[in-house]
């Protein structure tokens, strides 16, 4: 069964010039979701933007996996707080 949304991990490793072990670690830390079909590992293309960010954090800024994990959690929190702030600002407009 062919799924155009899935990209083989091996191909991504070649494209981004990263080790397979790096991708495996990202999967183990839950930073990306690796999907296995017929013993071939894939990544959904929706995750590519996040993957590119993780690659930059590791290879450009030399941040290890634990650091990337912590940063990802904090960025999610920042994002959630920003959304909450926007939502509260919008609610406040009801009383203006």
């Amino acid at each position, binding site marked *: 069964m062919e799924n155009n949304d899935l990209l083989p991990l091996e191909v991504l490793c070649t494209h981004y010039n990263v080790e397979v072990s790096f991708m495996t670690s990202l999967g183990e830390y839950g930073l990306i979701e690796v999907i296995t079909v017929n013993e071939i590992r894939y990544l959904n293309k929706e995750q590519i*933007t996040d993957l590119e960010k993780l690659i*930059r954090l590791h290879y*450009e*800024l*030399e941040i290890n996996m634990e650091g990337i994990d912590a940063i990802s959690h904090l960025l999610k929190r920042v*994002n959630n707080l920003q959304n909450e702030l926007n*939502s509260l600002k*919008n609610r406040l*407009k*009801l009383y203006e």
Partner: protein
Amino acid sequence: MEFIDYYKILELDKKASDDDIKKAYRKLARKFHPDLNPNDPAAKLKFQQINEANQVLSDPEKRKKYDAHGKDWKHADEFERAGRQQSYQRPSGSGSQGNFSDPDFSDFFESMFGGAGGTRSGGSAKYRGQDFNAELHLDLKDVYETKKQTLTVNGKNIRLTIPAGVEDEQTIKIAGHGSPGVNGGPAGDLYITFIITNSTKFKREGSNLYTDVELDIYTAVLGGEIVIDTFDSKVKLSVKAETQNGTIVRLKGKGLPVYKKEGESGDLFVTYKIKIPTNLSDKEKELFRELSKIKDNGK
């Protein structure tokens, strides 16, 4: 054009070793990298300065020139003309190295090193292109339906789909539409923040809408039917007898569409504001007195 102290930017002194420069760059890049500071223009600017400082100080040839001319960098061109023949050339057209676009570098950098691509040695690290930020101003009426709009960003036309129900100050990312990457690095992203003004009589919270409707005292007391405006049409409402002031009625599905959930809409909340009649005629006053007496006698 002001002199830029690259050592100061990287928090180093002039005797810094190559290793010190590398460490300082890494440390500051981790602090100000755009991936770690989303939607922060100040951090982005700082990161560009750090990048520029690193480009100069980590390249022995550039560092030598920078150190030699330092604050007297204005005389660098004379020095160049006298001593050498055009060592530094501006990049011509589309360079194969995919360097930073010129706006990423200060005028100072360009005047000394002849533009972003001047003497960059091959094999340098990949860098992600700069992110672009833009604001798109819309009225609440514009977000009732999904719309397509063409934006021009840095000379490129981008056809944008604005999903119905987008929130005020919501930012969407259009991947890969920022500045091109460096040395094969990925292009930056385009962030569009929607600024939504409201010229309608409806107030909004998420996908729900709120409005006040005046109700005459007779309809409020006796009940009846009224026609009210919804966001895109009119509906007939049955008003129950003895409706109190401030009663809120929910009209399911008459709010704004829920963002990115096709077919789903929020609700419209109508608050009844009962209007007390004024300028009553003698006959009306008489009848109200009569009503009052009936009420008192009924107790």
